[in-house]
């Protein structure tokens, strides 16, 4: 989440240019800006050439996934002209970005120094040759296995990035190859902007291709979907078929309406992020340091509430900005938050918190896993199936944030919570129905539900916010008044 006010302003200015463009140029404009934006948004990395290389790798992974999902079939037609032109355009843009190193220091656009164009060309040529050889081999393998292998490869990359020992090992290797100080290798060296979201978009297309749900799309549509700049750093995680539908009807919504809706969402997002969340971040929010420093239970609770609201306003603010910017460019990105802290049960909370991630996990973890367990013989009990599916789904969501013990526990915390709520809801459903004609009691019941849900979520944030298990335990004990 690194987009600042200046970035938002630049994107809004680009939307003005976009509005003046002839409609047929607009998809290409979106593609070009998206590719350039990912290089511009990528922060500086301590590893030599890593910043440029990681975003280039994002593009190459995107190309590979498109080829696997759209081209690696026996009856694929010859490469269309616009796909060939897009390949050339992407190559040109990757080389164009390297020219930033030739600009005077004061006017450079990137926060890092890209490698020389010659090297990039050489490496890309080598990659192309290897890819052709690999493609030749892959055509001989069962298609389903190839797609599974691609998904697993993305998971492996994800683990290498998010698991600190693995990330340190990769950073060490990189440093040794580029002649940098190996002793300084750290997980933060591999700050690959946007990869968490890119990986989930790519896995979605690979899995949908496997199940036959993926629609056909062109290379420029696919690349724009994966790299779409408003949603690149912090989501939402759109679905390909919905996104491509918007791209193919970019002018369906009148410009004034787009600007009215988009401008309002951006204004709301800016207020949430830069006024509320950033204010809460300054001393009104739980951190590893303040958790240890806190000397009063009430003060610690205040910091925890502050953290909970900061997280919501920060993330939902970014989502609003992304959705607003998307609207300016004619793309209606999916909603990501629907007043989650007002929900009266944990299931509703997860249907309204980071909705696109929850949906992704439901589509690709919960549902297939539940179905698979249902088909097992002997079939496990419903409770075992549900518990396994909830725990697995929430574990993946936890690990998506980082492969650490605290994220694992946070995921399990919510998995258990969802399971318990489901059991509770099943057992109280009949009684709750009897409250339909007792509005007072129904409201009181909702209030109790809200109070429990909100505090279950808020206490869960202790695992999310703090870096180690002992500190989180100590903080929870302090909150309960047993360790101040």
């Amino acid at each position: 989440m690194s987009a600042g006010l200046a970035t938002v302003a630049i994107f809004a200015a680009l939307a003005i240019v976009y509005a003046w463009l002839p409609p047929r140029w607009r998809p290409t404009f979106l593609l070009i800006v998206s590719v350039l934006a990912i290089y511009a948004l990528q922060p500086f990395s301590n590893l030599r050439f890593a910043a440029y290389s990681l975003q280039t790798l994002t593009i190459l992974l995107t190309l590979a996934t498109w080829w696997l999902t759209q081209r690696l079939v026996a009856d694929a037609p010859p490469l269309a002209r616009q796909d060939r032109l897009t390949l050339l355009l992407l190559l040109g843009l990757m080389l164009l970005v390297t020219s930033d190193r030739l600009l005077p220091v004061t006017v450079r656009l990137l926060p890092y120094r890209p490698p020389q164009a010659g090297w990039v060309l050489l490496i890309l040529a080598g990659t192309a040759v290897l890819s052709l050889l690999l493609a030749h081999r892959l055509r001989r393998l069962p298609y389903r296995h190839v797609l599974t292998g691609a998904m697993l490869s993305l998971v492996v990359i994800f683990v290498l990035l998010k698991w600190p020992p693995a990330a340190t090992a990769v950073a060490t290797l990189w440093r040794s190859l580029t002649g940098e100080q190996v002793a300084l290798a750290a997980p933060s060296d591999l700050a690959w902007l946007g990869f968490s979201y890119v990986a989930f978009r790519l896995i979605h297309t690979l899995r949908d291709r496997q199940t036959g749900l993926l629609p056909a799309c062109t290379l420029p549509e696919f690349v724009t979907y994966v790299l779409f700049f408003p949603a690149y750093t912090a989501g939402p995680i759109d679905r390909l078929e919905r996104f491509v539908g918007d791209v193919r009807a970019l002018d369906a919504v009148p410009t004034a309406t787009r600007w009215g809706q988009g401008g309002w969402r951006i204004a709301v997002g800016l207020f949430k992020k830069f006024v509320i969340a950033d204010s809460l971040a300054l001393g009104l929010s739980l951190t590893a340091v303040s958790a240890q420093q806190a000397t009063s239970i009430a003060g610690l609770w205040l910091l925890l509430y502050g953290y909970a609201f900061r997280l919501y306003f920060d993330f939902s603010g970014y989502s609003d900005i992304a959705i607003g910017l998307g609207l300016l460019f004619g793309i209606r990105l999916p909603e990501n938050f629907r007043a989650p802290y007002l929900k009266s049960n944990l299931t509703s909370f997860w249907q309204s918190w980071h909705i696109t991630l929850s949906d992704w996990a439901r589509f690709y973890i919960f549902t297939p896993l539940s179905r698979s367990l249902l088909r097992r013989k002997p079939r496990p009990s419903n409770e075992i199936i549900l518990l396994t599916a909830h725990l697995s789904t929430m574990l993946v969501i936890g690990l998506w944030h980082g492969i650490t013990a605290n994220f694992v526990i946070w995921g399990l915390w919510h998995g258990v919570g969802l399971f318990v709520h489901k059991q509770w809801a099943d057992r109280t459903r009949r009684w709750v129905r009897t409250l339909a004609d007792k509005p007072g009691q129904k409201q009181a019941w909702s209030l109790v539900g809200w109070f429990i849900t909100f505090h279950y979520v808020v206490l869960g944030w202790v695992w999310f916010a703090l870096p180690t298990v002992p500190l989180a335990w100590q903080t929870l004990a302090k909150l309960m008044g047993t360790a101040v």
Partner: protein
Amino acid sequence: MNTSTQTYTWRFLLRVLLKTALLFVAINLLFATAATPESYGRLSLYNRLWPGRDRLPYGENPAESYNLSLNNLPAMLASHRLAQPKAADEFRVLLLGDSAVWGWLLPNEDTLAGQLNQMNLRRADGRSLTFYNLGYPILSLSKDLLLLDEALAYQPDLIVWLVTLDSLAPAQQLNHPLLWHNAPRTRELIQTFQLPLDAADGRFVTPTFWQQTLVGQRQALANWLRLQQLGAAWQATGVDQFIPAEFTPRATDFEVDESWQEIATAVPLTAADLAFPMLAAGVQMAGDVPVLIVNEPIFVSDGQNSDLRYNAWYPRWAYDQYRELLAETAAAHHWTYLDLWHLVPGEQFTDSPVHLTAVGNQLLANELADSIAPETSSFRGNE
């Protein structure tokens, strides 16, 4: 507001933009005419929602120290626990001074005010002495005057004013944004007490009308708001300063160098070379409230070239003359004066020649307590 299905026309959007612009201009004009830092600065969540701070707000890294520097004097004082209503049995003692009094590198309980408060001193009439830390990390008596001017509204019974040579250096008197951004108050002090300072100093900030609008005041307003919100962390943690685990200790060995401020070698100093009029103004401003002037302890080195310098700040020739001149001036004006320059052993100084450790402050507090007792007709108690 659900905007996802709303349709708009350019005409509607233009009307919205126009109304927004008009509202923006109107609010700015209203703010410029009705609100001043003086007025909104007195509004504070401290001593209401959050406990008052033990020392004045100061800090460059709010995220770590839960504190920040700002130039709004009323807001600074309103965030201090001094702004609480005075109890009937309370005897208020204000401690004025620099970063040594503020408590650089020390938690509040180890500062001079903290140590004095832990002594539970009482007057003979039963009133308990409560010490308020009004130290501020600037070496300038003008800054102390500015703070005293605001603090007198909080009914002090005694003022203990700790000074050191550099705080009397004429060049230091107007050398801080706190004074520049409170230009009308500083100018008024210069005029009222005929201080030998330039009321037309180019660094004084006189805001234009536009700088008094909401947009013009945005930084000052943001600082005031941040001070209020940092109260939550202050309330939860009691932390108001980032104290590093390690720091560079004050120097013990020196080059062959006898310079002090802009003066390169030893010269005779006269009372006119030091800012004694500031001290006189402070005593006059305090009126009936007694003022105890204290020459605060300094680090006295026995290292290389310590025959030339007491420490990194003070050559012996300048400091010795300063002590003589201060004692003479205090006697001439009948000020209550205490010279504690050599009270604290060298190992009880931290990163500068005036910053004390907790033990150093305890020594100073003990000495001050003994000296304050006759001043206030009180006695030591509850030790």
